[in-house]
Protein backbone atom coordinates (compact mmCIF):
# COMPACT_ATOMS: atom_id res chain seq x y z
CA UNK A 1 0.00 0.00 0.00
CA UNK A 2 3.05 2.19 0.45
CA UNK A 3 3.03 2.64 -3.31
CA UNK A 4 -0.34 4.26 -3.35
CA UNK A 5 0.85 7.39 -1.68
CA UNK A 6 2.37 9.42 -4.49
CA UNK A 7 3.13 12.50 -2.47
CA UNK A 8 3.83 12.66 1.21
CA UNK A 9 4.57 15.74 3.21
CA UNK A 10 6.41 15.29 6.46
CA UNK A 11 6.21 18.00 9.10
CA UNK A 12 6.32 20.70 6.48
CA UNK A 13 6.65 24.27 7.69
CA UNK A 14 6.65 27.16 5.28
CA UNK A 15 7.80 30.69 5.94
CA UNK A 16 7.25 33.95 4.15
CA UNK A 17 10.14 35.82 5.67
CA UNK A 18 9.50 35.32 9.36
CA UNK A 19 5.80 34.60 8.99
CA UNK A 20 5.04 30.92 9.33
CA UNK A 21 2.39 30.22 6.71
CA UNK A 22 2.20 26.47 7.27
CA UNK A 23 2.74 24.58 10.49
CA UNK A 24 3.76 20.94 10.65
CA UNK A 25 1.78 19.67 7.71
CA UNK A 26 1.98 15.92 7.32
CA UNK A 27 -0.29 14.62 4.61
CA UNK A 28 -0.34 11.69 2.24
CA UNK A 29 -1.85 12.05 -1.19
CA UNK A 30 -3.07 8.86 -2.74
CA UNK A 31 -2.80 7.76 -6.34
CA UNK A 32 -5.83 8.16 -8.60
CA UNK A 33 -7.72 10.17 -6.07
CA UNK A 34 -8.99 13.68 -6.06
CA UNK A 35 -7.87 15.36 -2.89
CA UNK A 36 -9.44 18.71 -2.07
CA UNK A 37 -7.85 21.29 0.18
CA UNK A 38 -10.38 23.64 1.74
CA UNK A 39 -10.38 26.38 4.34
CA UNK A 40 -10.92 30.11 4.73
CA UNK A 41 -8.77 32.63 2.84
CA UNK A 42 -5.26 32.72 4.11
CA UNK A 43 -5.45 29.29 5.70
CA UNK A 44 -2.44 28.10 3.74
CA UNK A 45 -4.16 25.76 1.33
CA UNK A 46 -2.80 27.45 -1.80
CA UNK A 47 0.61 27.78 -0.20
CA UNK A 48 0.71 24.06 0.38
CA UNK A 49 -0.33 23.34 -3.18
CA UNK A 50 2.39 25.55 -4.64
CA UNK A 51 4.90 23.91 -2.41
CA UNK A 52 4.21 20.52 -3.92
CA UNK A 53 5.77 21.40 -7.28
CA UNK A 54 8.14 24.06 -6.00
CA UNK A 55 6.22 26.93 -7.55
CA UNK A 56 6.90 28.76 -4.31
CA UNK A 57 10.56 28.91 -5.37
CA UNK A 58 9.56 31.85 -7.53
CA UNK A 59 8.71 33.97 -4.52
CA UNK A 60 11.60 35.69 -2.83
CA UNK A 61 12.18 35.38 0.86
CA UNK A 62 10.39 32.11 1.47
CA UNK A 63 11.72 28.90 2.85
CA UNK A 64 10.54 25.39 3.51
CA UNK A 65 11.29 23.09 6.40
CA UNK A 66 10.46 19.43 6.49
CA UNK A 67 10.21 17.05 3.57
CA UNK A 68 7.96 16.74 0.57
CA UNK A 69 8.38 13.25 -0.76
CA UNK A 70 7.38 12.60 -4.34
CA UNK A 71 7.62 8.91 -5.09
CA UNK A 72 9.78 8.58 -2.04
CA UNK A 73 12.26 11.32 -2.94
CA UNK A 74 12.37 14.68 -1.20
CA UNK A 75 11.81 17.29 -3.89
CA UNK A 76 13.54 19.87 -1.73
CA UNK A 77 16.74 17.87 -1.62
CA UNK A 78 19.65 19.95 -2.96
CA UNK A 79 20.31 17.66 -5.92
CA UNK A 80 16.74 17.91 -7.23
CA UNK A 81 16.12 20.12 -10.23
CA UNK A 82 12.81 21.98 -9.73
CA UNK A 83 12.31 22.05 -13.51
CA UNK A 84 12.25 18.27 -13.44
CA UNK A 85 9.81 18.23 -10.53
CA UNK A 86 7.42 20.55 -12.34
CA UNK A 87 7.53 18.36 -15.39
CA UNK A 88 6.24 15.44 -13.35
CA UNK A 89 3.77 17.45 -11.29
CA UNK A 90 1.60 19.65 -13.49
CA UNK A 91 -0.35 22.64 -12.38
CA UNK A 92 -3.52 24.45 -13.40
CA UNK A 93 -4.15 27.94 -12.10
CA UNK A 94 -6.98 30.04 -10.83
CA UNK A 95 -7.35 32.15 -13.93
CA UNK A 96 -7.18 30.43 -17.27
CA UNK A 97 -3.71 31.40 -18.52
CA UNK A 98 -3.17 30.16 -22.03
CA UNK A 99 -0.18 31.70 -23.76
CA UNK A 100 -1.02 34.21 -26.47
CA UNK A 101 -0.14 31.61 -29.05
CA UNK A 102 -2.14 29.18 -31.14
CA UNK A 103 -3.97 26.32 -29.48
CA UNK A 104 -1.48 23.92 -31.01
CA UNK A 105 1.53 25.86 -29.80
CA UNK A 106 0.07 26.15 -26.33
CA UNK A 107 -0.12 22.41 -25.96
CA UNK A 108 3.22 21.65 -27.55
CA UNK A 109 5.03 24.35 -25.59
CA UNK A 110 6.15 22.09 -22.78
CA UNK A 111 6.84 18.94 -24.78
CA UNK A 112 8.90 20.89 -27.33
CA UNK A 113 11.07 22.38 -24.61
CA UNK A 114 11.51 18.92 -23.20
CA UNK A 115 12.94 17.86 -26.53
CA UNK A 116 10.00 16.43 -28.43
CA UNK A 117 10.43 17.59 -32.00
CA UNK A 118 8.67 15.15 -34.26
CA UNK A 119 5.68 16.83 -35.87
CA UNK A 120 3.61 13.66 -36.11
CA UNK A 121 4.21 12.79 -32.49
CA UNK A 122 3.36 16.32 -31.51
CA UNK A 123 0.13 16.21 -33.44
CA UNK A 124 -0.83 12.94 -31.84
CA UNK A 125 -0.02 14.39 -28.44
CA UNK A 126 -2.14 17.47 -29.10
CA UNK A 127 -5.12 15.37 -30.07
CA UNK A 128 -4.69 13.03 -27.14
CA UNK A 129 -4.36 15.84 -24.62
CA UNK A 130 -7.30 17.74 -26.02
CA UNK A 131 -9.42 14.63 -25.99
CA UNK A 132 -8.53 13.98 -22.39
CA UNK A 133 -9.55 17.50 -21.58
CA UNK A 134 -12.81 17.01 -23.49
CA UNK A 135 -11.96 19.93 -25.74
CA UNK A 136 -10.98 18.16 -28.95
CA UNK A 137 -14.38 18.28 -30.58
CA UNK A 138 -14.70 21.97 -29.95
CA UNK A 139 -11.29 23.03 -31.25
CA UNK A 140 -10.09 20.37 -33.66
CA UNK A 141 -10.74 22.61 -36.64
CA UNK A 142 -9.15 25.73 -35.18
CA UNK A 143 -5.91 24.40 -33.74
CA UNK A 144 -4.01 27.16 -35.49
CA UNK A 145 -6.06 29.95 -34.02
CA UNK A 146 -5.09 31.94 -31.00
CA UNK A 147 -6.00 30.39 -27.69
CA UNK A 148 -7.11 33.84 -26.57
CA UNK A 149 -10.20 33.55 -28.76
CA UNK A 150 -11.61 30.69 -26.71
CA UNK A 151 -14.15 31.25 -23.97
CA UNK A 152 -13.00 31.24 -20.36
CA UNK A 153 -14.13 27.70 -19.77
CA UNK A 154 -12.49 26.48 -22.95
CA UNK A 155 -9.30 28.30 -22.03
CA UNK A 156 -9.22 26.55 -18.71
CA UNK A 157 -9.73 23.17 -20.34
CA UNK A 158 -6.95 24.10 -22.75
CA UNK A 159 -4.71 24.80 -19.77
CA UNK A 160 -5.60 21.39 -18.41
CA UNK A 161 -4.80 19.82 -21.77
CA UNK A 162 -1.52 21.73 -21.83
CA UNK A 163 -0.62 20.33 -18.43
CA UNK A 164 -1.65 16.83 -19.50
CA UNK A 165 0.56 17.03 -22.57
CA UNK A 166 3.57 16.85 -20.26
CA UNK A 167 2.25 13.47 -19.11
CA UNK A 168 2.56 14.35 -15.46
CA UNK A 169 1.81 11.95 -12.65
CA UNK A 170 0.13 14.50 -10.49
CA UNK A 171 -2.05 17.46 -11.39
CA UNK A 172 -2.27 20.36 -8.99
CA UNK A 173 -5.22 22.68 -9.41
CA UNK A 174 -5.46 26.03 -7.70
CA UNK A 175 -9.13 27.04 -7.62
CA UNK A 176 -9.44 26.12 -11.28
CA UNK A 177 -13.04 27.23 -11.63
CA UNK A 178 -13.19 30.34 -9.47
CA UNK A 179 -13.02 32.56 -12.54
CA UNK A 180 -15.61 30.61 -14.52
CA UNK A 181 -19.38 30.65 -14.84
CA UNK A 182 -21.45 27.77 -13.46
CA UNK A 183 -21.77 25.93 -16.76
CA UNK A 184 -18.05 25.96 -17.48
CA UNK A 185 -17.48 25.03 -13.87
CA UNK A 186 -19.70 21.99 -14.21
CA UNK A 187 -17.74 20.90 -17.28
CA UNK A 188 -14.41 21.22 -15.51
CA UNK A 189 -15.77 19.34 -12.53
CA UNK A 190 -16.90 16.49 -14.74
CA UNK A 191 -13.50 16.52 -16.36
CA UNK A 192 -11.71 16.29 -13.04
CA UNK A 193 -13.75 13.27 -12.11
CA UNK A 194 -12.92 11.68 -15.46
CA UNK A 195 -9.22 12.41 -15.10
CA UNK A 196 -8.75 10.76 -11.76
CA UNK A 197 -8.58 7.34 -13.33
CA UNK A 198 -5.27 8.35 -14.92
CA UNK A 199 -3.94 11.06 -12.66
CA UNK A 200 -3.59 11.98 -9.06
CA UNK A 201 -5.31 15.28 -8.57
CA UNK A 202 -4.89 17.75 -5.75
CA UNK A 203 -7.23 20.69 -5.88
CA UNK A 204 -7.55 23.84 -3.84
CA UNK A 205 -11.02 25.28 -3.78
CA UNK A 206 -12.81 27.85 -1.70
CA UNK A 207 -16.08 26.42 -2.89
CA UNK A 208 -16.92 23.78 -0.36
CA UNK A 209 -19.67 22.35 -2.47
CA UNK A 210 -17.15 21.81 -5.21
CA UNK A 211 -14.90 19.89 -2.86
CA UNK A 212 -17.94 17.82 -1.88
CA UNK A 213 -18.88 17.12 -5.46
CA UNK A 214 -15.58 16.09 -6.93
CA UNK A 215 -13.14 14.95 -4.30
CA UNK A 216 -12.48 11.64 -2.61
CA UNK A 217 -10.42 13.07 0.21
CA UNK A 218 -10.71 16.48 1.83
CA UNK A 219 -8.28 18.34 4.02
CA UNK A 220 -9.49 21.30 6.05
CA UNK A 221 -6.93 24.00 6.82
CA UNK A 222 -7.11 26.80 9.31
CA UNK A 223 -4.43 29.30 10.22
CA UNK A 224 -1.77 27.29 8.45
CA UNK A 225 -2.62 24.05 10.17
CA UNK A 226 -4.22 20.91 8.85
CA UNK A 227 -7.24 20.57 11.11
CA UNK A 228 -8.86 17.48 9.65
CA UNK A 229 -8.04 15.22 6.75
CA UNK A 230 -10.33 12.41 5.86
CA UNK A 231 -12.69 10.95 3.27
CA UNK A 232 -14.83 13.68 1.73
CA UNK A 233 -18.02 11.84 2.60
CA UNK A 234 -16.98 11.73 6.21
CA UNK A 235 -15.99 15.39 6.29
CA UNK A 236 -19.33 16.42 4.88
CA UNK A 237 -21.58 14.13 6.89
CA UNK A 238 -19.81 13.61 10.18
CA UNK A 239 -16.51 15.41 10.61
CA UNK A 240 -14.54 14.58 13.70
CA UNK A 241 -13.45 18.07 14.59
CA UNK A 242 -15.85 20.81 15.59
CA UNK A 243 -13.88 23.50 13.74
CA UNK A 244 -14.35 21.60 10.53
CA UNK A 245 -18.05 21.22 11.09
CA UNK A 246 -18.42 24.88 11.99
CA UNK A 247 -16.60 25.90 8.84
CA UNK A 248 -18.44 23.71 6.39
CA UNK A 249 -21.81 24.52 7.89
CA UNK A 250 -21.07 28.24 7.67
CA UNK A 251 -20.93 28.91 11.40
CA UNK A 252 -17.47 30.30 11.28
CA UNK A 253 -16.16 33.66 12.35
Amino acid at each position, binding site marked *: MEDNRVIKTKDVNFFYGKFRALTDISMDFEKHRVTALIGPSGCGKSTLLRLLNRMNDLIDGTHVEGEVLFEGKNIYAPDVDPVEVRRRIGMVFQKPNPFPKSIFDNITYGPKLAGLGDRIELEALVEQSLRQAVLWDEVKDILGQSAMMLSGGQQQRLCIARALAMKPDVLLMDEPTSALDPIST*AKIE*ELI*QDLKKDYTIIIVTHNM*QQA*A*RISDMTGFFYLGKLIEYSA*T*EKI*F*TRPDIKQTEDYITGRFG
Partner: protein
Amino acid sequence: MEGTRRTSTHYERELQDIKQNLLYSGALTEKAIENVTASLLDRSSDLARQVIEGDAEIDRLDTEIEEQCIRLLALRQPIARDLRFITTAIKINGHLERIGDMAVNIAERVLALNEVPQLKPYIDLPRMAEIARSMIRGSLDAFVREECELANRVRRMDSEIDTLNEQIFRELLTFMLEDARTIHRALLIMQVSKNLERIADHAKGIADMVVYMVTGINVRHQWPGEDHDDVCRTRREEG
Protein backbone atom coordinates in the same frame (compact mmCIF):
# COMPACT_ATOMS: atom_id res chain seq x y z
CA MET B 1 -31.70 23.34 -25.47
CA GLU B 2 -33.66 20.17 -26.00
CA GLY B 3 -31.59 17.21 -26.92
CA THR B 4 -28.38 18.77 -25.72
CA ARG B 5 -28.48 17.10 -22.32
CA ARG B 6 -25.00 15.81 -21.77
CA THR B 7 -24.08 12.18 -21.62
CA SER B 8 -24.63 10.98 -18.12
CA THR B 9 -22.55 12.80 -15.59
CA HIS B 10 -21.04 11.26 -12.51
CA TYR B 11 -23.85 12.82 -10.56
CA GLU B 12 -26.51 11.27 -12.73
CA ARG B 13 -24.81 7.94 -12.46
CA GLU B 14 -24.98 8.21 -8.69
CA LEU B 15 -28.67 8.98 -8.93
CA GLN B 16 -29.08 5.98 -11.20
CA ASP B 17 -27.27 3.80 -8.67
CA ILE B 18 -29.84 4.71 -6.07
CA LYS B 19 -32.64 3.93 -8.48
CA GLN B 20 -31.09 0.55 -9.29
CA ASN B 21 -30.70 -0.29 -5.63
CA LEU B 22 -34.29 0.67 -4.95
CA LEU B 23 -35.51 -1.50 -7.79
CA TYR B 24 -33.39 -4.34 -6.50
CA SER B 25 -34.81 -3.89 -3.03
CA GLY B 26 -38.29 -3.72 -4.57
CA ALA B 27 -37.70 -6.95 -6.41
CA LEU B 28 -36.52 -8.60 -3.20
CA THR B 29 -39.64 -7.54 -1.32
CA GLU B 30 -41.88 -8.71 -4.15
CA LYS B 31 -40.10 -12.01 -4.12
CA ALA B 32 -40.49 -12.16 -0.35
CA ILE B 33 -44.23 -11.66 -0.63
CA GLU B 34 -44.44 -14.23 -3.38
CA ASN B 35 -42.44 -16.71 -1.32
CA VAL B 36 -44.30 -16.09 1.86
CA THR B 37 -47.61 -16.55 0.08
CA ALA B 38 -46.35 -19.77 -1.45
CA SER B 39 -45.10 -20.94 1.94
CA LEU B 40 -48.55 -20.27 3.35
CA LEU B 41 -50.35 -22.10 0.59
CA ASP B 42 -47.87 -24.96 0.36
CA ARG B 43 -47.36 -25.04 4.13
CA SER B 44 -43.62 -24.90 3.43
CA SER B 45 -41.68 -23.90 6.50
CA ASP B 46 -38.44 -23.94 4.53
CA LEU B 47 -39.70 -21.25 2.21
CA ALA B 48 -40.93 -19.24 5.19
CA ARG B 49 -37.53 -19.48 6.85
CA GLN B 50 -35.95 -18.44 3.56
CA VAL B 51 -38.06 -15.29 3.65
CA ILE B 52 -36.98 -14.56 7.20
CA GLU B 53 -33.34 -15.01 6.31
CA GLY B 54 -33.74 -12.99 3.14
CA ASP B 55 -34.75 -9.92 5.10
CA ALA B 56 -31.16 -9.32 6.11
CA GLU B 57 -30.41 -8.42 2.48
CA ILE B 58 -33.34 -6.01 2.38
CA ASP B 59 -32.12 -4.45 5.62
CA ARG B 60 -28.64 -4.17 4.19
CA LEU B 61 -30.04 -2.46 1.11
CA ASP B 62 -32.08 -0.17 3.33
CA THR B 63 -28.94 0.98 5.09
CA GLU B 64 -27.00 1.25 1.85
CA ILE B 65 -29.67 3.24 0.01
CA GLU B 66 -30.12 5.57 2.91
CA GLU B 67 -26.39 6.14 3.08
CA GLN B 68 -26.30 6.78 -0.65
CA CYS B 69 -29.09 9.29 -0.33
CA ILE B 70 -27.52 11.14 2.57
CA ARG B 71 -24.18 11.03 0.79
CA LEU B 72 -25.78 12.64 -2.23
CA LEU B 73 -27.56 15.20 -0.09
CA ALA B 74 -24.28 16.04 1.58
CA LEU B 75 -22.01 16.00 -1.44
CA ARG B 76 -24.23 16.97 -4.36
CA GLN B 77 -26.81 19.15 -2.70
CA PRO B 78 -29.57 18.25 -5.08
CA ILE B 79 -32.41 20.61 -5.85
CA ALA B 80 -35.69 20.55 -7.75
CA ARG B 81 -36.19 17.29 -9.64
CA ASP B 82 -33.12 15.69 -8.07
CA LEU B 83 -34.13 16.68 -4.57
CA ARG B 84 -37.62 15.33 -5.09
CA PHE B 85 -36.04 12.15 -6.39
CA ILE B 86 -33.82 11.77 -3.33
CA THR B 87 -36.54 12.49 -0.78
CA THR B 88 -38.79 10.10 -2.66
CA ALA B 89 -36.05 7.49 -2.67
CA ILE B 90 -35.55 7.86 1.08
CA LYS B 91 -39.28 7.38 1.66
CA ILE B 92 -39.65 4.50 -0.77
CA ASN B 93 -36.65 2.87 0.82
CA GLY B 94 -38.28 3.16 4.23
CA HIS B 95 -41.49 1.66 2.88
CA LEU B 96 -39.67 -1.24 1.24
CA GLU B 97 -37.79 -2.01 4.40
CA ARG B 98 -41.07 -2.04 6.34
CA ILE B 99 -42.63 -4.28 3.70
CA GLY B 100 -39.72 -6.65 4.16
CA ASP B 101 -40.37 -6.65 7.89
CA MET B 102 -44.05 -7.38 7.30
CA ALA B 103 -43.10 -10.30 5.09
CA VAL B 104 -40.96 -11.58 7.92
CA ASN B 105 -43.90 -11.14 10.29
CA ILE B 106 -46.08 -13.14 7.94
CA ALA B 107 -43.41 -15.79 7.58
CA GLU B 108 -43.27 -16.16 11.35
CA ARG B 109 -47.05 -16.62 11.46
CA VAL B 110 -46.77 -19.14 8.65
CA LEU B 111 -44.23 -21.12 10.65
CA ALA B 112 -46.71 -21.17 13.53
CA LEU B 113 -49.58 -22.09 11.22
CA ASN B 114 -47.56 -24.94 9.78
CA GLU B 115 -47.40 -26.45 13.26
CA VAL B 116 -51.16 -26.88 13.31
CA PRO B 117 -53.72 -28.24 10.82
CA GLN B 118 -54.98 -25.88 8.16
CA LEU B 119 -58.11 -24.03 9.24
CA LYS B 120 -59.63 -23.55 5.83
CA PRO B 121 -58.51 -23.24 2.22
CA TYR B 122 -57.04 -19.82 1.60
CA ILE B 123 -58.85 -17.92 -1.14
CA ASP B 124 -58.82 -14.26 -0.20
CA LEU B 125 -55.32 -14.22 1.30
CA PRO B 126 -53.50 -15.12 -1.93
CA ARG B 127 -55.67 -12.54 -3.71
CA MET B 128 -54.64 -9.94 -1.16
CA ALA B 129 -51.02 -10.94 -1.51
CA GLU B 130 -51.27 -10.72 -5.26
CA ILE B 131 -52.82 -7.27 -5.12
CA ALA B 132 -50.22 -6.10 -2.62
CA ARG B 133 -47.45 -7.43 -4.81
CA SER B 134 -48.84 -5.78 -7.91
CA MET B 135 -49.19 -2.53 -5.96
CA ILE B 136 -45.50 -2.66 -5.10
CA ARG B 137 -44.60 -3.45 -8.67
CA GLY B 138 -46.93 -0.78 -9.97
CA SER B 139 -45.65 1.89 -7.65
CA LEU B 140 -42.03 1.09 -8.50
CA ASP B 141 -42.85 1.05 -12.21
CA ALA B 142 -44.45 4.43 -11.75
CA PHE B 143 -41.30 5.54 -9.94
CA VAL B 144 -39.00 4.38 -12.68
CA ARG B 145 -41.11 5.74 -15.50
CA GLU B 146 -42.13 8.81 -13.52
CA GLU B 147 -45.75 8.12 -14.37
CA CYS B 148 -48.20 9.92 -12.23
CA GLU B 149 -51.25 8.16 -13.65
CA LEU B 150 -49.92 4.74 -12.84
CA ALA B 151 -49.10 5.80 -9.31
CA ASN B 152 -52.61 7.08 -8.93
CA ARG B 153 -54.01 3.76 -10.05
CA VAL B 154 -51.92 2.05 -7.37
CA ARG B 155 -53.21 4.46 -4.79
CA ARG B 156 -56.78 3.52 -5.66
CA MET B 157 -56.08 -0.22 -5.34
CA ASP B 158 -55.54 0.20 -1.61
CA SER B 159 -59.28 0.20 -0.91
CA GLU B 160 -59.66 -3.24 -2.47
CA ILE B 161 -57.15 -4.62 -0.02
CA ASP B 162 -58.93 -2.93 2.86
CA THR B 163 -62.18 -4.55 1.82
CA LEU B 164 -60.58 -7.97 1.57
CA ASN B 165 -58.92 -7.57 4.95
CA GLU B 166 -62.20 -6.68 6.58
CA GLN B 167 -63.88 -9.62 4.86
CA ILE B 168 -61.23 -12.02 6.12
CA PHE B 169 -61.49 -10.56 9.60
CA ARG B 170 -65.20 -11.10 9.74
CA GLU B 171 -64.94 -14.60 8.36
CA LEU B 172 -62.32 -15.53 10.91
CA LEU B 173 -64.34 -13.99 13.71
CA THR B 174 -67.16 -16.32 12.74
CA PHE B 175 -64.82 -19.29 12.89
CA MET B 176 -63.59 -18.24 16.31
CA LEU B 177 -67.05 -17.73 17.73
CA GLU B 178 -68.17 -21.07 16.39
CA ASP B 179 -65.24 -23.08 17.54
CA ALA B 180 -62.84 -21.98 20.27
CA ARG B 181 -60.23 -24.41 18.96
CA THR B 182 -59.79 -22.27 15.87
CA ILE B 183 -59.01 -19.16 17.84
CA HIS B 184 -55.26 -19.55 17.84
CA ARG B 185 -55.07 -20.29 14.12
CA ALA B 186 -57.60 -17.62 13.27
CA LEU B 187 -55.59 -15.04 15.16
CA LEU B 188 -52.48 -16.01 13.21
CA ILE B 189 -54.33 -15.75 9.92
CA MET B 190 -55.75 -12.41 11.01
CA GLN B 191 -52.24 -11.18 11.59
CA VAL B 192 -51.19 -12.41 8.17
CA SER B 193 -54.08 -10.53 6.65
CA LYS B 194 -53.36 -7.44 8.71
CA ASN B 195 -49.74 -7.52 7.59
CA LEU B 196 -50.76 -7.84 3.97
CA GLU B 197 -53.04 -4.87 4.45
CA ARG B 198 -50.15 -2.91 5.89
CA ILE B 199 -47.94 -3.96 3.00
CA ALA B 200 -50.54 -2.51 0.68
CA ASP B 201 -50.52 0.65 2.80
CA HIS B 202 -46.81 0.95 2.29
CA ALA B 203 -47.21 0.34 -1.43
CA LYS B 204 -49.70 3.16 -1.47
CA GLY B 205 -47.17 5.23 0.45
CA ILE B 206 -44.66 4.58 -2.32
CA ALA B 207 -47.23 5.64 -4.90
CA ASP B 208 -47.94 8.81 -2.92
CA MET B 209 -44.26 9.69 -3.06
CA VAL B 210 -44.13 9.03 -6.79
CA VAL B 211 -46.96 11.48 -7.27
CA TYR B 212 -44.96 13.95 -5.21
CA MET B 213 -41.81 13.33 -7.16
CA VAL B 214 -43.49 13.85 -10.50
CA THR B 215 -45.78 16.72 -9.61
CA GLY B 216 -44.22 18.21 -6.53
CA ILE B 217 -47.60 17.89 -4.79
CA ASN B 218 -47.90 16.19 -1.43
CA VAL B 219 -50.88 13.77 -1.47
CA ARG B 220 -50.04 11.76 1.59
CA HIS B 221 -52.89 13.00 3.72
CA GLN B 222 -55.31 13.11 0.89
CA TRP B 223 -57.33 10.11 -0.12
CA PRO B 224 -57.18 8.88 -3.68
CA GLY B 225 -60.82 9.73 -4.16
CA GLU B 226 -60.41 13.35 -3.18
CA ASP B 227 -59.07 14.94 -6.27
CA HIS B 228 -56.57 12.61 -7.65
CA ASP B 229 -57.81 13.20 -11.13
CA ASP B 230 -56.40 16.69 -11.12
CA VAL B 231 -53.11 15.90 -9.47
CA CYS B 232 -51.47 14.51 -12.55
CA ARG B 233 -52.86 17.20 -14.81
CA THR B 234 -51.28 20.03 -12.88
CA ARG B 235 -47.94 18.81 -14.12
CA ARG B 236 -46.22 21.46 -16.11
CA GLU B 237 -45.38 21.40 -19.76
CA GLU B 238 -42.35 19.22 -20.29
CA GLY B 239 -39.90 21.37 -22.17
